[in-house]
């Protein structure tokens, strides 16, 4: 067996393994004759696959619980006739047994063998268990006996309760009635109070340890056992079992007291009220991190009957700092009693009804559901491929599960507000309003706000807000409408929970379009949303997020117009954007964002190859500097400076500094990552470059630009087959995305697929980006159409003679394709003089592979600062 043979076998295996078994058997059978050797190998591998999937060799962490782990069912141990297993947990296994001495049924709990303890630990465990056994309280499980079997196993004989655990109830029914929740909480608190009074802390309170009996009484199981268990583990505070109910101090492995139990009770109460855990995650690590760092989502966000008092009680139990929790169960019981007399913790009927009415009024009209469902389905299919390369996200309902990667507790997308009433001059305002809301909200710590492009592109597909929310995997969306009537604007805004589809907040405003009033709407919406989602955000956070760089509504309107054209990202759009930004500045000469917009528009104009870079970049630099002179915290301007330092000055350290500053200001601003990828390619860190692009795509998954640039980066880092996969995903969604066909063509050339490469370029528009302009000529040259390649070269040269900007980089690529080394070097020299934007990728450019040892090539690279 060699590597190539293994690749062949694998290719067949990959094709077969996903098939339906019947189909697979048929395919395999045909191989038996034609290629018996391959047939044998595949049979063997498929069998291996089945086995590996079944048990994973016992190495994987998830082992299957055994029916009778100790092998004692039906036997007599000590003075007990052991019957069947009742349950098994992280530390022990419980059997139903008969106590032959006293003639009663008991629950007999053994510590599992891997909790076997040394002599001193054993003594400690027995002491703890005896202390717990001495507790006698109607809400605590009665322990009859603690002992050791002949074989040295520790056991506890406990009263056998017929009932179910709270875990079982929650799993079956989900959230419980508020009154029942309060009653169970009260009984648990009573039990805790009795135990804490004697100095015993439970340390492992969770629904699985709470028994609900038929007479509505509640018993807490396993008091005091967790401590012995933890001591048996290690001094490192290792924890097994579920981390979900663990307090922050336990997660950190610190000393705990009764207040840790109060935290756990808070988690249990939260789960009873909402049917969810306040700190969730796919893996233990994610949950642990959420416990340490995230604020829980408000219970009332899941269920609106919960009163403010009850919510306050839950949140007090879930304070990270034990000092801020209730000091003891008595205090908790006092608050519980107060809430119960006030009406069981629910808000009044009238209030609920009022909330509903308000929602109904505020809800914007929606198109017919049937059509929408169809639309959503087809878009989902098309977009599914988008996630192949970068990552698989958990479904929307489990957005919190990714907290290990995205620390923000609440994820949200702002949709472009619908412009009602057909006045298209109002469009920049309705888009811009959402845009600015996005900016304001993304400045709030712990809010994770989806970038605008993704939200906007899905809205354009006509999806309804909830569908867009689930596609974007956010928990909430902000949606709204804007209507301009004469000099007035009427704005509605609402916050929708994507999981439930419910509006959790809505409001409407009517303001003069000509006065500063309109700003107060943005403030008000931002504040309401932040208050709703992050009740603990400090007032300062909220205030700074709505700070605005102009007080002049007219300048603001012009700025929004500029943004609107900028987003078109074509050469006309850039010029129009420049014009509007300039007009905005004429009205308010201190308008930092407008300067930043100008800088962006010029930098892109240069980068897109619309103009000669060495005449445009200095202008871009001037405006970026002006923007920062007025407000040094404008992230866009820092990115512009980084961009200029990188693409024009070839000054890597300066670029690194600006990127650093920008990411400190707002790491979630996707262009930081989009461009920093080039910095990493310039400085020889290809993996980091790919990482940056993936981050950009993560932040803005539906942006065609980010997804296409990922193709570019994969191409320059020579991951051609990955580049193709990614390109295909983008292509499926938008075959005409700017530059995509050229990207694909050059990837095909590298993969030796000339036919596909040529087909891709058939009828495609010219792509002025200097890196892509030469692709057509290069492809012709490489695919045996030398004459066409020369014609393309001449066409471009003629355009250049006519005064148009044609990047010499592109000409160099075509000359390289034609194999003319001298001409290639000559063009690269000119590209150096014109400062063709990403000239520094020349050493990664596959077209120049054969030139890399050429001293002239090396010399150019050295002048740019690229190490060969």
């Amino acid at each position, binding site marked *: *067996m060699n590597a190539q043979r*293994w690749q062949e*076998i*694998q290719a067949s*295996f*990959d094709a077969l*393994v996903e098939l339906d078994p019947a189909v697979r058997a048929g395919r395999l059978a045909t191989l038996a004759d034609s290629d018996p050797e391959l047939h044998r*190998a595949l049979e*063997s*591998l*498929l*069998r*291996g*696959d089945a*086995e*590996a*999937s079944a048990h*994973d*060799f*016992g*190495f*994987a*962490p998830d*082992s299957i619980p055994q029916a009778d782990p100790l092998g004692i069912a039906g036997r007599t141990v000590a003075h007990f006739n052991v019957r069947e297993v009742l349950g098994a947990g992280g530390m022990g296994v419980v059997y139903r047994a008969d106590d032959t001495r006293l003639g009663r049924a008991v629950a007999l709990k053994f510590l599992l*063998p*891997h909790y*076997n*303890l040394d002599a001193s630990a054993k003594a400690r465990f027995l002491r703890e268990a005896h202390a717990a056994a001495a507790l006698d309280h109607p809400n605590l499980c009665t322990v009859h006996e603690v002992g050791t079997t002949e074989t040295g196993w520790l056991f506890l004989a406990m009263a056998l309760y017929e009932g179910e655990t709270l875990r079982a109830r929650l799993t079956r029914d989900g959230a419980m009635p508020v009154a029942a929740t309060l009653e169970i909480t009260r009984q648990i608190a009573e039990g805790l109070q009795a135990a804490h009074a004697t100095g015993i802390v439970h340390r492992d309170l969770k629904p699985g340890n709470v028994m609900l009996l038929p007479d509505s009484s509640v018993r807490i199981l396993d008091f005091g056992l967790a401590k012995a268990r933890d001591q048996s*583990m*290690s001094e*490192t505070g*290792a924890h*097994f079992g579920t981390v979900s109910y663990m307090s922050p101090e336990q997660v950190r492995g610190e000393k705990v007291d009764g207040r840790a139990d109060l935290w756990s009770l808070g988690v249990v109460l939260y789960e009873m009220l909402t049917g969810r855990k306040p700190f969730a995650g796919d*893996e*233990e*690590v994610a949950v642990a*991190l*959420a416990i*340490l*760092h995230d604020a829980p989502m408000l219970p009332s966000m899941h269920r609106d009957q919960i009163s403010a008092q009850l919510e306050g009680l839950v949140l007090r139990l879930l304070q990270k700092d034990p000092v801020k929790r209730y000091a003891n169960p008595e205090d908790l019981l006092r608050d519980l009693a107060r809430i119960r007399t006030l009406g069981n913790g629910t808000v009044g009927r009238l209030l609920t009804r009022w909330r509903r009415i308000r929602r109904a009024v505020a809800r914007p009209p929606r198109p017919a559901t049937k059509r929408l469902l169809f639309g959503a389905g087809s878009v989902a299919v098309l977009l599914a491929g988008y*996630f*192949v*390369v*970068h*990552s*698989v996200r958990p479904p929307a309902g489990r957005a919190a599960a990714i907290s*290990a*990667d995205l620390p923000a507790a609440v994820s949200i997308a702002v949709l472009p507000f619908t412009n009602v009433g057909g006045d298209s001059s109002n469009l920049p305002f309705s888009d811009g309003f959402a845009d600015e809301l996005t900016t304001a909200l993304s400045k709030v710590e712990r809010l994770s706000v989806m970038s605008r492009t993704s939200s906007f592109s899905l809205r354009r597909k006509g999806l309804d807000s909830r569908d867009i929310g689930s596609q974007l995997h956010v928990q909430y969306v902000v949606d709204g409408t804007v209507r301009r009537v004469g000099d007035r604007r009427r704005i509605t805004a609402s916050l929708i929970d994507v999981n439930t589809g419910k509006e959790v907040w809505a409001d409407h405003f009517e303001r003069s379009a000509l006065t500063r009033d309109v700003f107060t709407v943005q403030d008000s919406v931002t504040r309401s949303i932040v208050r709703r989602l992050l009740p603990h955000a400090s007032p300062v956070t909220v205030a700074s997020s709505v700070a605005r760089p102009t007080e002049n509504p007219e300048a603001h309107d012009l700025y929004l117009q500029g943004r609107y054209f900028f987003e078109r990202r074509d050469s006309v759009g850039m010029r129009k954007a420049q014009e509007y930004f300039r007009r905005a500045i004429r009205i308010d000469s201190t308008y930092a964002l407008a300067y930043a917009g100008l800088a962006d528009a010029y930098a892109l104009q240069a980068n897109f190859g619309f103009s000669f870079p060495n005449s445009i970049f200095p202008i871009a630099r001037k405006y970026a500097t002006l923007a920062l002179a007025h407000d040094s915290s404008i992230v866009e301007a820092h990115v512009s400076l980084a961009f200029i330092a990188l693409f024009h000055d070839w000054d890597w350290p300066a670029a690194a500094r600006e990127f650093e500053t920008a990411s400190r200001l707002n790491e979630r601003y996707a262009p930081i990552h989009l461009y920093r990828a080039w910095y*990493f390619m310039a*400085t*020889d*860190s290809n*993996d*980091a470059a*790919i*990482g940056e692009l*993936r*981050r950009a795509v993560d932040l803005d998954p539906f942006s065609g630009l980010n997804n296409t640039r990922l193709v570019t980066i994969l191409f320059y880092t020579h991951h051609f087959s*990955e580049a193709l*996969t990614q390109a295909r995903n983008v292509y499926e969604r938008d075959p005409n995305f700017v530059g995509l066909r050229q990207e694909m063509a050059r990837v095909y050339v590298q993969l030796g697929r000339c036919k596909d490469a040529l087909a891709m370029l058939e009828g495609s528009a010219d792509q002025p980006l200097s890196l892509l302009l030469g692709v057509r000529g290069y492809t012709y040259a490489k695919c045996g159409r030398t004459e066409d390649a020369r014609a393309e070269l001449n066409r471009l040269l003629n355009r250049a003679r006519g005064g148009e900007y044609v990047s010499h980089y592109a000409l160099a690529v075509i000359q390289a394709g034609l194999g003319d080394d001298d001409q290639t070097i000559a063009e690269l020299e000119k590209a150096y003089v014109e400062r063709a934007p990403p000239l520094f990728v020349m050493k990664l450019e596959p077209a120049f592979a054969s030139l890399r040892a050429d001293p002239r090539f090396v010399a150019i690279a050295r002048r740019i600062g690229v190490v060969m």
Partner: protein
Amino acid sequence: MAPDASEVTGLLQRWSAGDASARDRLIPLVYDRLRQLAHGRLGKAPAESSLNTTALVHEAYIRLVGAPRVDLPNRAHFLALASEIMRNLLVDRARARLTEKRGAGVSPLTLDELAGFSDENLERYTELDDAIKRLAELSPRQGRLLQYRYFGGLSLEESAAAEGVSLATAKRELRSARAWLAVDLKGDTLQ
């Protein structure tokens, strides 16, 4: 002396950014932490328990890095590194102990981390290690994917990020690698 989280995070970021010396400085930190954790854990483990390498590696992560702001690529790099160290640590110790048991001389290593570990378990890990080496000769990346899974418990997403490949690629390659492993561990070979 415990390194603080920001130091480890800083090293991770520098390593992700291509600074190889950062990786060299990370190794002893991760190694020490894993050894400590393994010591506490395994010393108490009786023969039949399986070593939860996943828990160890992830716990090392929480304790060394802790901060949730470390993004997926950095976390993936950390876990990948930890899985490699875990593998070396475990397999070296297991080999030394087995050698000692078979009377081929006394091992100079202190082996208390593996006290209570049955020979059968030790052999399973050395066999796994050998099998992974064999696959790595055919396909280095698949070797690493197996290591990530069985010595580090990396999720598919983390494995993909550690390798800089798509999730689909990681998934596909891990599946065939696992099937290969099943065949190999049975002592069969593919032709």
